[in-house]
């Protein structure tokens, strides 16, 4: 049997793809934004960092587990790194939480609270971009995107549609359909899987609730309801069903 010593505890492992899986198997809750076991490993959020017995810090999602490794997941150094990374994310993130559709279920919000980020020392100096509301179902708000790339990989690797990708670089990087086209002009099938993986409110499902109410009360209309896949996904999402 192969073992890794995690936080002074010996944890057996077999053929786990990466160290993060071993850590999670041991019941340790390591926060992540960009890791999903069914997607390729992207390694961008750096929340999953761990420290080894020589003080080396590395991302556990992209480390091969090796027999005899000694690692720690919650040292003061790591806590500090994670907290600062979250602070940096929040600093460039639209913080209108109260009116955000994801308020209360947002992973970014949840982790910020969990890790005790109660002060952001930087101004949001990022260029504010318009929302893309062109599609009938998917709404993209770039100002809430943390660029974890989960939607990009889901659309490409799982759905095989490949509508979303990155454009520009550095702090100007953003997620967008090719050539900056609006969502309505892409091959998006409206499956809503990008919403399921998005850890923030950057991708939401368009709400037609008010329009429906209006029609329901329109005496001249006979109302027939048909539900799009994205709607089912949105409901499933709320109950944690993918």
């Amino acid at each position, binding site marked *: 049997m192969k073992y890794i010593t995690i936080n002074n505890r010996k944890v057996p492992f077999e053929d786990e793809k990466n160290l993060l899986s071993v850590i999670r198997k041991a019941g340790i809750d390591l926060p992540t934004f960009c890791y999903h076991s069914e997607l390729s*490993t*992207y*390694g*961008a*959020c*750096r929340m999953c*960092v761990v420290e080894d017995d020589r003080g080396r*810090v590395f*991302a556990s*999602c*992209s480390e*091969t587990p090796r027999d005899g490794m000694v690692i720690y997941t919650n040292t003061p*150094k790591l806590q*500090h*790194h994670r907290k*600062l*990374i979250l602070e*940096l*994310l929040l*600093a*460039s993130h639209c913080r209108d939480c109260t009116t955000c559709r994801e308020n209360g279920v947002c992973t970014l919000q949840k982790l910020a609270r969990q890790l005790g980020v109660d002060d952001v*020392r*930087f101004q949001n*100096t990022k260029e504010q971009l318009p929302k893309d509301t062109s599609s009938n179902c998917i709404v993209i708000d770039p100002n809430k995107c*943390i*660029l974890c*790339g989960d939607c990009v990989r889901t659309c490409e690797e799982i759905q095989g549609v490949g509508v979303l*990708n*990155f454009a*520009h*670089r*550095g*702090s*100007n*990087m953003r997620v967008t359909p090719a050539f900056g086209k609006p969502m309505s002009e892409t091959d998006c099938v409206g499956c809503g899987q990008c919403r399921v993986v998005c850890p923030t409110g950057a991708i939401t499902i368009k709400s037609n609730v008010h329009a429906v109410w209006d029609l329901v009360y329109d005496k001249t209309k006979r109302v027939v309801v048909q539900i799009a896949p994205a709607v089912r996904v949105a409901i499933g999402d709320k109950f944690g069903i993918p």
Partner: protein
Amino acid sequence: MQRIDSREMLNELRHQSKQVVENSRCRILICAGTGCLAGGSGEIYDKMCELIAACPDVEVHFGPEIAHGDGPMEVKKSGCHGFCEMGPLMRIEPMGILYTKVSVDDCEEIFESTIKKGELISRLLYKQNGVEYQKQEEIPFYKKQTRLVLENCGHIDAEHIDDALAHDGYQALAKALHEMTPEEVVEQIYESNLRGRGGGGFQTGYKWKQVARQPEKIRYVVCNGDEGDPGAFMDRSIMEGDPHKMIEGMAIAAYAVGAQEGYIYVRAEYPLAINRLKKAIADAMECGLLGDNIMGTDFSFKLHINRGAGAFVCGEGSALTASIEGNRGMPRVKPPRTVEQGLFDKPTVLNNVETYANVPMIVLKGAEWFKGIGPENSPGTKAFALTGSVKNTGLIEVPMGTTLREVIFDIGGGIKNDGEFKAVQIGGPSGGCLMTPHLDINLDFDSLKKMGAMIGSGGLVVMDTNTCMVEVARFFMNFTQNESCGKCVPCREGTKRMLEILERIVAGKGELADLDLLEELAETITETALCGLGKSAALPVMSTLKLFRDEYIEHVVDKKCKSHTCTAMRNYIINPDLCKGCSKCARNCPVSAITGQIKEPFTIDQAKCIKCGACQGNCAFGAIYVE
């Protein structure tokens, strides 16, 4: 060109090409590197060709002690000589004269006096401290160097393969193919302890061994010619000046690791390098030194050029291979490593231009010879781009382990305008600074790493006491911030914040707490970033913060910049004793910040002043100074 289908034929061609060189009555090599071309060396070349075409049989007289052949005169375009400061350069063989700062108008005189009569033109010769140097080799800038990789740069015609062949081009490949097994070649490179010149200093032979060991049989060799460091041009000079040396190195690598195809990744901002490489590859293909069944053996190797759009991050291995594949140039997580799954997911040898250019020498002269140069752990030479406030700027090559003092004061000739040395920035945006106490440090991978600096790709920026170190840090942070790919949070967001803080400090709006915040950010970015760009992005800031903390404090507490570099903190003052009250400054001030009575001393309203300096430039009496 004939097809070379055996080693004998290569030797025969070498012999023929050598004869042409040796028989030539006189060879005129005009530097056609990017720097000299910009200085007009293209026209000089045309003019010399014209002059010689007009009287091809001209008699040359160089004096009795200089032997020369009686074949045709040759005018050649060479690659960069390295002495860019003095360009356009012209070398005249067989005398070995180097003319500096040549212009088209000098050509006729050169032809009439130097070539026809052997008379030297004093104004075109290099002078230092009152001494005039006739021969290129005697100029201190060259004399103190050991030019092995750059041996041919400036001495051969970079656009014709014959010249490369005459200078032993492809001899090492012939030796490898005919006398050595691939394993022996790998072993020899491993033995030589050649370390990658692209910055990391990783052992080349070890990398080759790992690729050779992979079960997958389709393999690639890739050359990293991205050279993204601002101010670095070593790789460009090799690609422009001696492209065949690097191509030969790649072919040897391919033979050693069993690769069938290779890619050279060059930034599109290097059009000349790309053209020379294209020509060199086409020539080598045509005469059978690349392509199928090289020199009659069953080794085949094809080489492609890939132009990059000039992103610094594309110099990182996995971003580079992604870019060649046509994807976004963004580093990926490792494992798998490039040696296991690199280009097109196949085992890949990725080396730097200079690393490949070292390979032929090692194969020809042996690992022991190579280990005899420089220190044991970093053998060989290293090319550096010497720039900044030093008298002789340019491209130099010295044995590893040479001290900074030798480089700056012997080769570089000391500080420009007899200024005072302050620091040297080494390794570009991922490197650090060194000061006077470090002048006797040996330039090699390990010694520098210990000092918190790094050889990087070899940029050396010398700074005198007029340099503001905070501004230097801001400059490099601005570069890295712009060049970050944006993938991982610490680098994307962290460098942005560090830059904002540094911008605040140089604008005179910094606070003491900002220094702690800088350090805090630097630590997290360095420890958690995904790739080398982020991991080293904070180095210029950390090293200046460590060595020049007082300067930072002066900026944030006293709101002063000693060197007057940071405009926002300059105070323009009129010295009442020198001011004649002419009102010229007041008339030139764009914001009317200067007032006074004619013939009385004028004054500047600091609150209104936008620090443009127009007044100072306009005062005929030198009455305005900066505080």
